[in-house]
């Protein structure tokens, strides 16, 4: 939930080694395993051939990292869960709205699942129900379908995470590389700016923005289709604010990595060969930022998702009739004693998302930088 404090320790030591730096000689893990077994019985001819091919063509650092990542069971399971939740958020509502027959509502006449399985439809005589065939996860205190609301909430979480990360990565790389490569005033401005942003503890800045401009967004941005409608108007505001506080950290990581890369011999060689600065940056520096950017972005995604939930929970994010995991928690707050299920559901799902992202982020970091483990 805290935007930067958590990220600050993504690297236990100073910087990750660039991908292109040849790591100290390591035994091929596959071979070490084999050495323990009986070689002759363990290998078929094909496998031997494969091994021979492997020897000829050593794996790139990226392939090495991916292999390490695949072996991390916790991280892979987390990816599975995240993938499932993403699919659920994107395709779930569409499928769910085609399941079930027409329903004779006492208040709304005969309605199809397209209506009663939507996240904003209220069936006021069916409040606070438990899971049933019609409402798979039950209904909330206004008779709205909890599963539909949850899926919409997931969609909000995912879209805001992607949106913020796009801005974060673009700005972070652009400013970070320039600051690291050229130094000078860009570096100075970046350093000062980061200091100021870091002084705003986490959500405080977003609370400030959402608190002051939220009402304005409600009236002026709600006419924008999809992203503005259904109480989502403040989301744009919140995501901009989140991106605004997120990018300096990314830029700082990128800057550090660029500084380190700049001193590497292959950059020196490129420069001696007369390569222009732009080309050095695009061809040699940016590709080598891959691992640090991916790790930082994954870990920052958790922060974004939590921050959005938090800000909606405080009543400054998504507004009714829209849905968000944070809003679901806040609306069920008075029902803790009578219907704890309604608050446990969104809180539990959020906990699962956060843990999966953290496990995956940790796995990524370990895979890209095995030395960071202890």
């Amino acid at each position, binding site marked *: *939930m805290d935007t930067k404090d958590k990220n600050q320790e993504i690297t236990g030591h100073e910087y990750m080694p660039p991908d292109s730096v040849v790591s100290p000689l390591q035994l091929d893990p596959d071979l070490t395993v084999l050495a323990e077994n009986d070689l002759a019985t363990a290998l078929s001819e094909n496998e031997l051939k494969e091994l021979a091919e492997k020897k000829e063509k050593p794996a790139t650092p990226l392939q090495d990292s991916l292999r390490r990542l695949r072996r991390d069971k916790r991280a892979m399971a987390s990816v599975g869960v995240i993938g499932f939740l993403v699919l659920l958020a994107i395709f779930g509502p569409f499928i769910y709205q085609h399941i079930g027959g027409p329903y004779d509502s006492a208040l709304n006449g005969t309605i199809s699942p397209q209506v009663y399985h939507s996240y904003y439809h209220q069936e006021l005589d069916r409040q606070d129900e438990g899971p049933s065939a019609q409402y798979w996860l039950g209904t909330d205190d206004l008779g709205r379908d909890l599963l539909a609301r949850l899926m919409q909430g997931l969609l909000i979480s995912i879209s805001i995470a992607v949106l913020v990360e796009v801005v974060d990565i673009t700005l972070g790389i652009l400013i970070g590389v320039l600051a690291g490569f050229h130094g000078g005033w860009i570096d100075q401005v970046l350093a000062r700016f980061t200091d*100021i942003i870091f002084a705003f*503890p986490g959500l405080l*800045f977003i609370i400030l923005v959402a608190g002051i401009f939220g009402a304005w967004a409600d009236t002026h941005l709600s006419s924008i289709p999809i992203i503005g409608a259904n109480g989502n108007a403040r989301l744009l505001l919140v995501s901009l604010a989140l991106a605004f506080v997120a990018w300096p950290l990314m830029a700082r990581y990128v800057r550090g990595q660029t500084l380190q890369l700049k001193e590497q011999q292959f950059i020196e060689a490129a420069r001696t060969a007369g390569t222009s600065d732009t080309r050095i940056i695009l061809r040699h520096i940016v590709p080598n930022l891959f691992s640090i950017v991916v790790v930082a972005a994954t870990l920052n995604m958790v922060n974004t998702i939590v921050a959005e939930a938090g800000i909606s929970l405080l009543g400054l994010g998504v507004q009714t009739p829209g849905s968000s995991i944070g809003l679901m928690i806040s609306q069920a707050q008075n029902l803790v004693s009578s219907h704890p299920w309604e608050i446990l559901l969104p809180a539990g799902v959020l906990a699962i998302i956060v843990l999966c992202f953290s496990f995956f982020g940790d796995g990524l970091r370990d895979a890209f930088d095995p030395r960071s483990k202890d």
Partner: protein
Amino acid sequence: MVQFLIKRFIGLIFVVIGVTFITFVMGYFAPGDPIRAMMGSHYDPVVYVQLKHAYGLDQPFFVQYWHFLTGLFRLDFGLSYQIQNRPVWDILKDGVPISAELGFWALMLQVLVGIPIGIISALKANSWIDTTNMGIVLVMYSLPVFVFAVFFQVLVVAIDNGTGAQWPVANWGNAWHYSWSDIQFKIGPIVILALSLVAYLARITRTSMLEVLRQDYVRTARAKGMRERIVIYRHALRNALIPVVTILGLSLGLIVTGTFFLEEFFNIPGIGETTLQATQYRDYPVIQATAVLLAVAVVIGNLISDILYTLVDPRIKAS
């Protein structure tokens, strides 16, 4: 050392000016005319001009900013938009000791629990104790406070309903008083706030301790035949705690955001709760005041941890 601190102090002034400026600009360009909104249907041009003057809103931009900045030193944050002529500080001041109390005890717990967990984990590195510890710590660290708050409240309600106990689900009791009923109110929010702090510190302590245990002087101490206890507590631990000091400063950021949620969840009348109420009435000066107050508190916290750092680390003193 003096040079280092002066440099930090100049940086701090710069940051405070930046933070106040951003906050001020946002309030200045806030949509809508607060005076008009305040007057509602009783609009009267004469009163409007008077009010605008009273709130200082008829002044040029930089004059207003200057008043905003200098007012901070006198805890003068201007007047509230919600309640006419009521100073902002008047609204916030009751909440400050309560929020401070919440943060203070969480910080205490962090030190008292986080450091031992980190040390134990480092000493038993890679054993099952360490793995379990770090597993729990990872969960404590990753999950946001409000998820824990939800779980806690559901649990308390379930226990109260099941056993007929009367453990309070929300509210705070008297600030800085510790009768049994006060403690009942306070223990939940404090522990929940401390969870992520403890986890954070435990991780840092563990890493730092492992680093130190690998140093030559620890090996030398062992080689001399020193007792393990002395090696660990006198030689290793002291040095391992140096980076921990800086973490305490950084923890303030976590505390500040955490209190917002806990005050909302547990109905604690601290400044977070007051500020959230102010957002509903578009009482911008209150939001601005809280943002500046908390940001300045965090910056000062960092400065204090810098000072402590120079005191405990002789390497900085020398340079």
